[in-house]
């Protein structure tokens, strides 16, 4: 109970009694952080809902300019990356460092693919002048198309920022995993990065139908 003089693992920080307490704290902290992320995006979804309610015709017309194959491809890419992330956590639990590193690399690669596809989509939009707000120059969509593309770029842009943040922390645990720091007794960081990555994936799973598919 006092948890002081007994042999303490190197990953156990001084203010925790034992690894279980540390793990519990880290996971709870992560879940709360995810809740803040959901509320953050919740505001965006509300803005989307309000704008869609104001300009239903425009949204229907404008969404046709988004590329469903591209969005669909990205959805598949992200879901696959969630799978490899989940497998990476499993590998860490089994102390299989080689697997862990490989799976994290694949996850990172898929995240990169997502961004490349997004880049292609964005540049196409830029080319057509389908830009947010007052930079919108395209013709041929009735109503308030600049609002739709404003919402589109803000939502996918912020999601993209989260993908980049995810890539940074995946790289971080990848480097540490290569040093063999994660094993059956200690894999909380991998698990937490995994949780974050699944959330990023999940947000996209809502963004894709709302922006690309809903008629």
């Amino acid at each position, binding site marked *: *109970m*006092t*948890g*002081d003089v007994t042999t303490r693992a190197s990953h156990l*920080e*001084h*203010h925790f009694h034992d690894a279980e*307490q540390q793990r*519990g*704290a880290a996971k*709870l*902290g992560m879940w*709360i*952080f995810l*809740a*803040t*992320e959901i*509320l*953050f*995006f*919740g*505001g*965006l979804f*509300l*803005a989307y809902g*309000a*704008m869609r309610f*104001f*300009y239903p015709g425009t949204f229907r017309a404008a969404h046709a300019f988004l590329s469903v194959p591209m969005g669909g491809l990205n959805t598949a890419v992200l879901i696959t990356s969630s799978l490899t992330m989940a497998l990476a956590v499993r590998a860490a639990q089994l102390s299989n460092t080689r697997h862990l590193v490989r799976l994290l690399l694949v996850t990172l690669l898929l995240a990169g693919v997502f961004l490349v596809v997004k880049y292609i989509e964005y540049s196409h939009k830029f080319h057509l002048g389908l830009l*947010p*707000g*007052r*930079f919108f120059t395209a013709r041929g969509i009735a109503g*308030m198309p*600049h*609002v739709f593309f*404003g*919402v589109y*770029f*803000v939502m996918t842009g*912020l999601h993209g920022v989260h993908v980049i943040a995810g890539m940074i922390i995946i790289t971080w645990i990848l480097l540490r995993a290569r040093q063999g720091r994660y094993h059956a007794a200690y894999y909380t960081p991998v698990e937490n990065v995994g949780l974050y990555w699944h959330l990023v994936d999940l947000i996209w799973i809502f963004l894709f139908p709302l922006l690309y598919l809903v008629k």
Partner: protein
Amino acid sequence: MSTRTDALAPPHLEAPAPTEGESYLAAKGVMSWAFSRDHKRIGIMYLVAILFFFMVGGILALLIRMELLTPTGDLFSSDTYNKMFTLHGAIMIFLFIIPSIPAALGNFFLPLMLGAKDVAFPRMNLASFHIYVAGALVLLYSIVAGTMDTGWTFYTPYSTQTKAAVVSATFGVFILGFSSVFTGINFIVTVHRMRAPGMTWNRMPLFVWATYATAVIQVLATPVLAITLLLLIVERTLGIGIFDPAMGGDPVLYQHFFWFYSHPAVYIMILPAFGIISELITIHSRKHIFGYKAIALSSVAIAIISFLVWGHHMFVSGQSELAAMIFSFLTFAVAVPTAIKVFSWVATLYKGSIAFNTPMLYGLGFIFLFTIGGLTGIFLGTLSVDVHLHDTYFVVAHFHYVMMGGTVIAFIGGLHHWWPKMTGRMFSERWGKIAFVLVFIGFNLTFFSQFILGTRGMPRRYHEYLPRFTLWHVLSSIGSQILGIGLFIILFYLLYSLFRGARAPVNPWGGVSLEWHTATPPITHNFAEQPVVTHGPYDFDEIQREEAP
């Protein structure tokens, strides 16, 4: 219970409790502070920063009141006046009150009260402070260097059109939000995972309960502010047409977004104050708190309801009548858990042995001032009355009674209550009482006059006013000077006590909760041995029984 450790030795010890380890104040040097992960040092750094901003915001308020001494604008131009009240509001809200009690006193005492060595994530705690400093610098720079005349609410469409530095100011607030969220996450996890053995939920001090409820609001509401400000920034830079009516947006939508955070934020400010008052009232009347569970759970109830009342800021903004009625009803509903607290405090005082020392004076002052602040909130929550009082000085008076008469008074009371523990020094009780009297009189003179001004139709935020309002404005300005003098006296005697104050005993007030049972000032690891809790935080009988041989 034979497992009782030294850390739980009886109170009233004159010598420090037998503890191992150095005082948390022992290490010297700027770096040992700026990069400390010790929650106590982080709390002290927050305290210093917060008091600094309180002083800056306060001096601005005194200047504003000085300008309002006469009906015509003579000290400042209208633009300067707008800038000053914006600066006053933004500093007081974002840099002072929101972090005040949780980040300073909460950081210091939450782990101590739970019997923990530190908060769950010390590194994140330090990051929270650094982010706070960064956000404060961005916010202040943009207001001081640029202009800023939107008020602290950044209402659209004005904020999307004005030439003021809205983007960088809101970005500063955006950064500050992270600091608040980090503190909130830390506190929730600490309460859930770091409690000492025997520290059940119903043995937690009420300050911990209140801070916990606050943390829940911080975590759930602040992200919404973040996205609101981000959308505002995007609206200004790209004109995406969400909030700006000229681009097809809806300014009322902005108000919904803004108040969805900013009303709960009001409870981020007041809930920890309730926690402090619960501590002060019970300890300084040497009587077990009346209705422990009711007070604890009413904090949680307030936290929940606080998310459902934002529309009462928008009664005249053009929301639907049905929505306004529902929001009005829910606003009244907040009064119920709040009244439960006030009645419980009064019932605690009944037949208690009340010590009229400085912390308790603030505790009692709080009950008086907060009751006025709370009840005038009912006026404003009433639809028909609000139409007349909206945007008048009545509103200004109301929220100053709640924010300053409530939160700031509780904060100062808590500061006195825990000052001996934090610094190891006693402050001058006599000067404490003198300052309290000045603060109390000055405060009431300043803001009660404003209730009268408001009911007579004086609109808020005006640089000049009609001559018929002069008397009450003059009274208010005189009051503000008295209040300012009182606050500066507090600053001086507290600073003086650091150097010349008597050494503080371990437990000067005879408290039962754990923070009183470690060394004064606490050692770096808080407790020499893991404390084991065997009774509630206000079982004064228990302690008296222990004292008997």
